[in-house]
């Protein structure tokens, strides 16, 4: 069935041979390949596509270029899709959003009638009294606000990707200016990247056939060049520091680095302000051209054109050529060319004061203008029409340039750049040049300059085109002189009217920046592209300040809406896996993220894992620990200076607890260190601080210029801890050397073969049982783990995870740096005073620790048990005394071995004596606890050292 909207012209972006279909609000819609949803819906006679943000007014295609928020629809599960940009793929389920119960009958439209209740900034003024009412209204307002609904149950988009591109010259826009510039720059030898938001080069020449000489000139240009990379359907949304350009193309997020950026984004038309200026059927002149020329869709049957610019006449001709009846050309200029244009009536010195209709345009009211620009209300008439095209003087599409600091001014001759930025330039309409041939000439010049700036040379620099006066570069805003029966919108996205701006000015928000914050103009989908100039002009007139004195708002990226899933595509989340990862996975590990590593938290039964370690033997993957080798003639002295205890006197083959501080005496990290040879030490660090400790040692090595080499083996070596009363028995099955307590006692280290692999074995213990930490090349960790698992199968061996390890170490009373310490904890607070060798002449943190020691301890880390296990505090719970916080719980677990809850807590030093009672605040309740002696388990260390 014909809807009367098919164009006799063929759309330049449309493939007539491919028919597609989709549904809109359940209704099947036919489209042709290349058409946008908006064009296809318009062709199907559907004018109303959405409801407005605040007043739920009907809205339809307005800019057809993605510059406004009038056509937002839901496409499948994706909200806020701009129908004018989304090319039909076929099969989409498209629905309206922000309307209830239906797009055509939206009960929320009542807000439009109750607008007195919702003035600008109403959320600061209304619904606050009585006070109890606000939470209710706040919930209701939050529900009513916002556009579209996100499917929270759906899986996140994973089809997006980020790509990094580099070019000597990046040109944004492949219209006549941009393409001329690209050819010139490439001809000079530069590698050029061109971003074009349309699927083809040509810019506005694709749909505006009024500039015939320019069209002819453009058609002679080559359409490709070996040094030009053209990305079509690619939209730049930001220029960041260092000429980093953010752009999107299909499902790709492009990060482009260019030595020089040339912006050729052209200009765009602005809305006119009159009553009901948002009705479906009112659209920018270029929107009508785009529908006709790009998509082959007739924008309306009976048109009126409102203009204050010469291009209005050109549009009339174009519409007439497409078979559209143009009933009137309304030109605000009193002395405009009044020569007849076919059947169109020429109304000069007049303007549209009101659009008529409810759900779509049915006519316009036109009023004669007096010579001073005021309305002559005695001369009014109404004209029936279903299309009103707004043709304003073009305003530079300069938001990208303004982001980087380029400044513009509006003078008599039009828009001009008054302050540039190094590395970024502009040409064409965006720089204020209006004549298309002059734009192409300027493009060539700027392209050549960009090539030169990138290190290339040109034989002849193209001439700069002469400046041409811009006819009719005046504001499309004129203050209302008629009673305001209907709304006059300045910002369509946010439903901000002229009255709202007047109110804002009356309340003191009399600058576009403050007005924006108060009224939210320019905060919608268009980000000011459609409304910023009209709001600036309105602000100028409402405050009666000269236009040149009123600056526009600051432009910030993103200039166009960008899907979060596209931005997320640029971030990486590295996952560090130990060499035993797959074995843990097969054993049913539950994973824990630890400093980027995936570690087994447990294998399902923590208590069984603890019992296995206490009663038989357990295996834990400790490959994530930092592993550093320090060697060289000064190695011992170097470690003496960095660590708290003395290393130069450590016997070869012996190991020690190793703790180190920052310069301010705050505990930094701990681990185990062993002396392997006279000038060779091997140190472990905590998982989280492995890289930081390595960097710390490197910093002081270079600062002190010591003859030391530090090698980071953290990822090169896997590490497995085998521990428990039967650990020695198990180890004996896989080694050929003597691991007896006499030959390989507690706190010693040696190199030796384990399961046929040369390893470094440390006889140490963190969990309070006999333990051996086997460090081996990462490639062999799998073999050693498997061998130990097989050999220990009949011994009751179990792998255990981080959670069981935490329980076991707590039973033994060991602290964990980062969990039981914070950014203020000193080794004195943590009870490590005996470790510190204050007799050393110097070590990092010595002076502050000396002072703190003299001053006495502030707090103490103590062990505790609960007196009443009915309520179990969480880690971090406060310890209170007379209602004041005096400490906190840093660790607490149930001990399967001791069959009670045990923990570590920070208490003031004078309350840290064993047997003292204290109170833990848990969700308002007080839980009594008792300071206990630690370690809780095997206090003499017989099992550990045995």
């Amino acid at each position, binding site marked *: 069935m014909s809807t009367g909207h098919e164009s006799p012209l063929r759309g330049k972006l449309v493939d007539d041979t491919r028919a597609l279909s989709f549904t809109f609000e359940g209704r099947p819609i036919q489209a042709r390949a290349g058409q946008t949803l908006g064009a296809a819906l318009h062709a199907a006679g559907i004018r109303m596509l959405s409801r407005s943000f605040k007043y739920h007014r009907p809205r339809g295609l307005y800019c057809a270029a993605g510059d406004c928020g009038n056509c937002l629809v839901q496409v499948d599960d994706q909200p806020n899709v701009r129908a004018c940009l989304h090319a039909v793929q076929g099969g989409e389920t498209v629905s309206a959003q922000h309307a209830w119960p239906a797009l055509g009958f939206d009960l929320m439209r009542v807000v439009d009638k109750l607008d007195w209740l919702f003035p600008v900034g109403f959320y600061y003024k209304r619904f606050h009294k009585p006070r109890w009412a606000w939470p209710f209204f706040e919930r209701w307002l939050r529900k009513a606000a916002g556009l579209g609904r996100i499917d929270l149950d759906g899986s996140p988009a994973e089809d997006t*990707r*980020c*790509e*990094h*591109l*580099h070019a000597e010259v990046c040109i944004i826009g492949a219209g006549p200016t941009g393409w001329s510039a690209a050819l010139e720059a490439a001809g000079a030898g530069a590698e050029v990247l061109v971003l074009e938001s349309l699927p083809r080069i040509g810019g506005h020449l694709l749909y505006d056939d009024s500039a015939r000489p320019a069209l002819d000139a453009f058609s002679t240009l080559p359409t490709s060049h070996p040094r030009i990379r053209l990305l079509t359907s690619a939209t730049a949304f930001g220029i960041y520091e260092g000429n980093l350009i953010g752009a999107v193309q299909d499902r790709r997020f492009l*990060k482009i*680095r260019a030595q020089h950026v040339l912006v050729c984004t052209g200009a765009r038309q602005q809305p006119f302000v009159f009553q009901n200026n948002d009705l479906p059927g009112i659209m920018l002149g270029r929107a009508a051209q785009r529908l006709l020329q790009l998509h082959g869709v007739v924008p309306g049957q009976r048109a009126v054109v409102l203009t204050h610019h010469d291009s209005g006449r050109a549009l009339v001709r174009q519409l007439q050529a497409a078979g559209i009846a143009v009933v009137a050309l309304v030109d605000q200029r009193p002395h405009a060319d009044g020569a007849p244009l076919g059947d169109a009536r020429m109304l000069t010195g007049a303007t549209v004061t009101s659009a008529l209709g409810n759900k779509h345009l049915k006519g316009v009211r036109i009023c004669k203008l007096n010579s001073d620009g005021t309305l002559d209300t005695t001369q009014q008439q109404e004209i029936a029409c279903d299309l009103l095209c707004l043709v304003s003087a073009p305003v530079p599409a300069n938001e990208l340039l303004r982001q980087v600091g380029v400044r513009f001014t509006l003078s008599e001759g039009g828009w001009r750049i008054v302050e540039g930025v190094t590395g970024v330039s502009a040409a064409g309409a965006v720089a204020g040049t209006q004549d298309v041939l002059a734009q192409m000439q300027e493009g060539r010049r700027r392209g050549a300059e960009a090539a030169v700036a990138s290190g290339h040379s040109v034989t002849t620099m193209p001439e700069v085109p002469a400046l041409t006066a811009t006819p009719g570069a005046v504001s499309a805003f004129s203050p209302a002189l008629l009673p305001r029966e209907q709304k006059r919108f300045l910002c369509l996205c946010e439903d901000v009217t002229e009255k709202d701006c007047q109110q804002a000015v009356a309340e003191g928000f009399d600058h576009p920046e403050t007005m924006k914050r108060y009224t939210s103009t320019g905060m919608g989908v268009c980000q000011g592209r459609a409304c910023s100039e009209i709001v600036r002009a309105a602000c100028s007139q409402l405050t009666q300040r000269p236009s040149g004195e009123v600056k526009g708002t600051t432009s910030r990226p993103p200039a166009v809406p960008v899907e979060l899933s596209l931005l997320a595509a640029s*971030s*990486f*989340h*590295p*996952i*560090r*896996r*130990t*060499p035993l*990862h*797959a074995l843990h996975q097969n054993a049913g590990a539950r994973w824990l993220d630890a400093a980027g*590593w995936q570690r087994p938290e447990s294998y399902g039964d923590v208590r069984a894992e603890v019992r296995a370690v206490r009663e038989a033997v357990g295996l834990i993957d400790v490959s994530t620990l930092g592993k550093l080798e320090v060697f060289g003639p000064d190695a011992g002295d170097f470690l003496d200076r960095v660590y708290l205890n003395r290393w130069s006197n450590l016997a070869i083959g012996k190991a020690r607890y190793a703790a180190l501080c920052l310069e301010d005496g705050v505990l930094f990290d701990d681990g185990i260190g062993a002396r392997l040879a006279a000038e060779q030490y091997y140190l472990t660090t905590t998982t989280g601080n492995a890289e930081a400790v390595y960097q710390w040692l490197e910093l002081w090595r270079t600062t002190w210029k010591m003859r030391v*080499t530090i*090698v980071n*083996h953290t*990822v*090169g*070596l896997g590490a497995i801890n085998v521990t428990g009363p039967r650990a020695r028995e198990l180890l*004996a*099955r*896989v*080694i*050929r050397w003597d691991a007896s307590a006499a030959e390989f006692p507690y706190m010693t280290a040696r190199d030796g073969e384990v*399961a*046929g*692999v040369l390893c470094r074995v440390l006889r140490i213990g963190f969990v309070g049982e006999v333990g051996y930490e086997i460090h081996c*090349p*990462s*490639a*062999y960790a*799998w*073999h*050693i783990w498997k*061998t130990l698992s097989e*050999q220990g199968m009949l011994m009751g061996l179990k792998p255990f995870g981080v959670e069981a390890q935490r329980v076991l170490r707590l039973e033994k009373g060991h602290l964990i740096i980062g969990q039981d310490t914070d950014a203020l904890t000193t080794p004195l607070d943590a009870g490590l005073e005996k470790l510190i060798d204050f007799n050393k002449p110097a070590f990092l943190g010595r002076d502050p620790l000396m002072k703190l020691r003299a001053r006495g301890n502030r707090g103490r880390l103590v062990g505790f048990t609960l007196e009443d296990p009915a309520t179990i505090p969480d880690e971090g719970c406060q310890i209170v005394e007379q209602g004041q916080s005096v400490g906190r719980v840093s660790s607490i677990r149930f001990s399967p071995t001791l069959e009670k809850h045990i923990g570590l807590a920070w208490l003031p030093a004078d309350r840290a004596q064993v047997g003292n009672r204290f109170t833990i605040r848990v969700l308002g309740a007080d839980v009594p606890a008792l300071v206990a002696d630690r370690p809780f388990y095997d206090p003499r260390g017989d099992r550990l050292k045995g």
Partner: protein
Amino acid sequence: MAEIAAALARTPLATWHANAGARLVEANGWLVPAGYRTVEEEVAAMEKGGGLVEISSFGKILLTGSAVPILSWSLMGMGAAMKPHGVHAFAANGPVVGCRLAEDQLLLLASALTTMGLEQYLANICRGQQVSNNNLTTTLAGFWLIGSHVEATLRCVTDISLRAALPGPAACAQTRVAGVHAILIRSEELTLPAVRVYVGWDVGEYVWESLLRAGRETGLAAVGLEALERVRKPLPGMPASMP
């Protein structure tokens, strides 16, 4: 001591290869992926869409110290690796690629599954020199990214300009790939365009999967070592294919 199976070294991707259906074979004590399909199919895949080959098992030795410049000259003469970021292929008891990561850092990459020959060679060369010799074989995971879409794939995971960072046919650079530190090396060892990527052993699987994801659009596929040998160029005085 109990009866214990001989130790077999595993790359960080050994399980990944097995899950992906690779033919895993034992070579010089390593478990390595020989291939996923026939060699001919994999070579064709590399030529068409690109291939990703894990070479973590190949030997890597880092020489660090003030004597690196003179050692570079001893090892490679006045080759490209005399300057930082230069790369030069040479023979040292087997084919070796020398990558001058910095003024005082030379990374030597063996094109075989053992560093024994290279270590013996270095033992003689480095004796008495101010240089630290660190075997990074199980510290760095390594991949060959092969095919005409190498740059397009890397563009998705690194923000450096490959043309600037790896100029010419042989060069090396250190950068971030998929958010982790990486060494990129371009050399003329293969008949197809290719870049070696080295990252930490712990993030090997993560980067491998990131590269495959980045190359999905261009048809990048995992390829085995047998196909890699088919596209290897002969070094002067060395056989094209290693045993």
